[in-house]
């Protein structure tokens, strides 16, 4: 009996390598698109899924960044126009459409102004009125023409900046890569963008915290959601101080100055990744009233606006899914 028992046990020990390791949860951290990203995938396909997702994010980072060596955007900016891949063209087309829909509050041609503020480099400073005027002259939906895959600029010096949609687009593509690899449940944080895939492994919905603009380490509230893109834009994310005044990185394309609409952060919730990313910037620039008007006229998304005075404005579709933290009051928009 003893020998048989020993033999049996030994035989069993051979099984695991054959079955393969199947961790319940795979997690990766990576730096891309100028921010820290955290990806978590559940299930047996988690690890392979994450490899695919990471590869896709890196590919897009390289393709769309303003400064990368292989970047189509950089090439087009330097040459003052040119041909881009179908993928980039499609993204530009979409960005331009959203730009028109929100009256230019979000604009991919805002590059020259961002540059003059120094947000592309290590030194930020307040530009002179002349510098700003010159830069603003290069901004606007009319400065960019897209004919198929041909990009044309209306003037020399026009610069594209896809920073407002790159993370959203990448999140969407990464999600597709995860699903293609067989992952049914995953959650990704790309800087301020959260993207979920499916539901949590136990079938419940995800709980996504919304950063508190006053204290970004804490949360202003928690959103319960299924598969969605949850993108938050806020001045508190990147800023510099000069002479006691705070200047943040979300430039209002109309004025050339950091948007001062009374909104501290705008969160967009929708399944449309690029829309979520672009709109979060646009709504922050537009402010409460115009954002509400846009929501009513356009639809296709829900939003959470954190305004001054501890007010959180939530659109009707999210009323039951959002719970504020202490010190905040919720107003439901209908």
């Amino acid at each position, binding site marked *: *009996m003893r020998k048989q*028992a020993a033999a049996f*046990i030994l035989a*069993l*020990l051979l*099984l*695991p390598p054959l079955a393969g390791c199947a961790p*319940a949860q795979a997690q990766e951290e990576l730096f891309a698109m100028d921010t820290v990203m955290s990806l978590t995938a559940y299930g*047996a396909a988690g690890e392979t899924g994450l490899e695919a997702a990471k590869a896709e994010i890196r590919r897009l980072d390289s393709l769309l960044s303003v400064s990368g060596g292989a970047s189509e955007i950089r090439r087009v900016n330097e040459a003052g126009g040119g041909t881009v891949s179908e993928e980039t063209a499609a993204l530009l087309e979409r960005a331009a459409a959203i730009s028109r829909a929100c009256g230019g509050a979000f604009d991919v041609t805002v590059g020259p102004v961002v540059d003059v503020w120094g947000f592309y480099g290590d030194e930020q400073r307040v530009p002179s009125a002349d510098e700003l005027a010159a830069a603003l002259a290069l901004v606007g939906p009319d400065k960019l023409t897209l004919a198929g895959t041909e990009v044309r600029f209306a003037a020399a010096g026009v610069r594209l900046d896809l920073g407002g949609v790159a993370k959203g687009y990448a999140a969407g593509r990464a999600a597709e890569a995860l699903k293609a690899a067989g992952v049914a449940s995953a959650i990704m944080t790309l800087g301020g963008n959260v993207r979920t895939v499916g539901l949590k492994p136990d079938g419940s919905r995800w709980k996504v915290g919304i950063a508190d603009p006053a204290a970004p380490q804490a949360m202003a509230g928690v959103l319960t959601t299924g598969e969605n893109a949850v993108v938050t834009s806020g001045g508190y994310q990147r800023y510099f101080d000069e002479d006691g005044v705070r200047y943040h990185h979300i430039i209002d394309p109309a004025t050339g100055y950091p948007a001062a609409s009374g909104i501290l952060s705008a969160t967009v919730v929708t399944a449309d990744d690029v829309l979520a990313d672009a709109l979060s910037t646009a709504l922050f620039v537009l402010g409460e009233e115009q954002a509400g008007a846009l929501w009513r006229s356009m639809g296709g998304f829900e939003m959470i606006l954190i305004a001054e005075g501890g007010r959180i404005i939530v659109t009707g579709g999210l009323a039951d899914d959002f719970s504020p933290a202490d010190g905040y009051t919720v107003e439901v928009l209908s």
Partner: protein
Amino acid sequence: MKTKRITASAVLAAAALIIFAVEAQLPPLVPIPGIKLGLANVITVFALYYLGAPAAAAILAVRIVLGSVLLGQVGAMLYSAAGGLLAFAVSALLKRAFPPERLWVVSVFGAMAHNVGQMAAAVAVTATPALLWYLPALLISGIVTGAFTGLCAQFVYRRIGLKKM
């Protein structure tokens, strides 16, 4: 005689696997990692008295390995194995000192040893001694669950007969 033992071992191993798999479907009683009913141990401790140490060891090994593989938690197998090993060693040793009427006592010590073994593996692998904070809770859990499963095993043993195979 031998066939009977092998058959009994197989049946018990299958029973242990089923109990293990079913218990795994239940939501955790308490949000502390490592605390569970451990109902499959009813089989282990019963087999220890009914079939002897080697057979019980084989049944336990089957339950740990196949259980982890079937549930897709191969990563957790290391901790189960560490706990199971220590539990079995302690139980087998104590069995000599305790007659079947005190089967439940052996089960309690076994359960406590299981949790200690599992904790030791977890601390070693994750290099976080902070986990030891949970040890007293795991010991209480071991006493309670060990007594419960031990009584079940004792009950079964009394029913099936004190005749050792």
